[in-house]
């Protein structure tokens, strides 16, 4: 059992838009120094949850505290405790990167004599030092997103919210972004809550994941445990050995055997160790194995593939313009 401080405490949180329940009775604790991923398809209620925790939206019912402060009655203290990167960049693109940070350092009451140093620190952290005196309108999408991260860090917040930090970025910028998020965890010791609908992103960055579907948390664990929950790796072997099925079933590590069209499909705990043993005992024409991904977990739990969802879900849009 980890002994950590509970930084965010969510109890029975509900947000309704008319008949639509965007967030449905959400109860969740997030501990200090976690990188917590809220994983779900568009419209699952991720952004609505973040907006409520960041005091931008009032819950319909239920309660939550961030850094010990109530999100409704102590909203100013909550806002001073958090940094946030929105889905769409929100800096003023007529100003330079430095000017945007200077503006926000004043809004976040960073002491006058510490401003310059802190701005330089966060610019360095996100790799924008060289471009700090350029207008933001000359930045690429990835750079803008990194500037937002720098801005969120100015006041050394306890919690950092990243709402779909790589949405709309190309694969290279996405991986660069991951690098900076990891650096954030190491150098700034900030607790991170990120939302994403990219399985790989959640897997790479998060040490705990909550899968959210239709406003409810439907699974909550480490990425490894979620995947292990599916019953291990799958091995497919093409073989002409008669009775191969019976033979491999004798091994302890084989959990399940199925046979179809000359293929043996085995469920094992660890394919990398099992495969050499199996290949010594049966004559195989071909062999392949796969480890379950978070996508498999998602399909298993929600019955849907996350990628089938259209970009920009209705509920998220609705939440934005209501």
């Amino acid at each position: 059992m980890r002994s950590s401080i509970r930084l965010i405490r969510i109890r029975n949180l509900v947000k309704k838009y008319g008949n639509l329940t965007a967030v449905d009775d959400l109860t969740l604790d997030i501990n200090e120094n976690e990188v917590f991923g809220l994983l779900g398809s568009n419209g699952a209620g991720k952004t609505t949850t973040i907006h409520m925790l960041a005091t931008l939206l009032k819950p319909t019912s239920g309660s939550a505290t961030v850094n010990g402060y109530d999100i409704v009655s102590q909203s100013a203290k909550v806002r001073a405790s958090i940094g946030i990167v929105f889905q769409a960049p929100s800096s003023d693109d007529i100003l330079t990167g430095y000017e945007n940070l200077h503006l926000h350092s004043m809004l976040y009451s960073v002491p006058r004599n510490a401003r310059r140093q802190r701005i330089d620190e966060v610019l360095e952290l996100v790799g924008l030092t060289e471009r700090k005196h350029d207008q933001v309108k000359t930045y690429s999408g990835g750079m803008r997103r990194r500037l937002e991260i720098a801005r969120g860090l100015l006041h050394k917040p306890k919690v950092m919210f990243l709402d779909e930090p790589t949405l709309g970025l190309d694969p290279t910028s996405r991986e660069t972004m991951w690098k900076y998020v990891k650096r954030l965890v190491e150098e700034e010791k900030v607790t991170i809550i990120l939302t994403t609908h990219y399985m790989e992103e959640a897997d790479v960055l998060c040490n705990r994941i909550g899968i959210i579907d239709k406003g409810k948390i439907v699974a909550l664990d480490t990425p490894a445990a979620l995947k292990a929950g599916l019953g291990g790796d799958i091995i497919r072997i093409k073989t002409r050995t008669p009775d191969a099925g019976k033979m491999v079933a004798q091994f302890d590590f084989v959990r399940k055997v199925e046979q179809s069209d000359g293929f043996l499909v085995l469920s094992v705990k660890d394919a990398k160790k099992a495969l050499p043993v199996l290949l010594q005992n049966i004559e195989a024409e071909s062999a392949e194995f796969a480890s379950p991904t978070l996508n498999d977990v998602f399909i298993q739990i929600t019955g849907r593939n996350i990628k089938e969802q259209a970009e920009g879900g209705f509920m998220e849009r609705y939440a934005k313009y209501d």
Partner: protein
Amino acid sequence: MQSTISVEDHLTKIYALWLREFKVFMREKSRLIASTFTPILWLFVIGSGLGAANPSTVPGVDYQQFIFPGIVAMSIIFSSVFFGSYIIWDRKFDFLKSVMVAPVSRGSVFVGKTLGGMTTSLIQAAILLAIGAAIGIPFTPLSLVQVVAVILLMSFGLTSLGLALGSYMYSLEGFQMIVSFVVFPLFFLSGALFPLDNLPGWLGVLTAADPATYGVDAMRHAMLGEGSNSIEFDAAILVGYTAALGAFGIFSFKRMKAV
């Protein structure tokens, strides 16, 4: 001690928001040129064109000079109310959200934004005042102080009005309506282009309800020594309107939705 720190903190945040407006304004030169050009066009085309028929009732003052205070008021009305559209831009580009998630009170957000709008109005008015001196408006130190005071009151009140209306709107197209239903009536009913005496009854009532009327009249007093009301009366009404519009602005910002 606690409260001194807090006041300084509020002022820093207001300054930060004002500074952003000022920098953006200085970088968008086209805004200044476009919005100063229209009043100058009015002053010279309408002023000279209608001036040829000389409808001025003030002896010794030509029509161009007569409408000059009205044209200054026009510049303030247009730029101040129109500044409200920038709150819609801020919302569109999510900048507003980034400010609302910061530990800044809505009151400070409103004041910072309003001071930004006032600054742009003041710069335009200053350019017009220089032109006024060139067309023979006899400024004295006292009249300049009076005119600047009126400009400050009007621009504060009308920027508040524009921002308050903008805070309820989500599209720039919607804000265009404000121009038709607020800006033009404010201008045309203010007596900027005609004397208020001897108006038909219905028009008299409408002009009396227009806050800009008192700004135009006060400036006409200060610049030309001629007006329909006493300058003290104009000032009192103007202060009342300004306070009410400022309160409306703060109220609107406090109930403005963040997302």
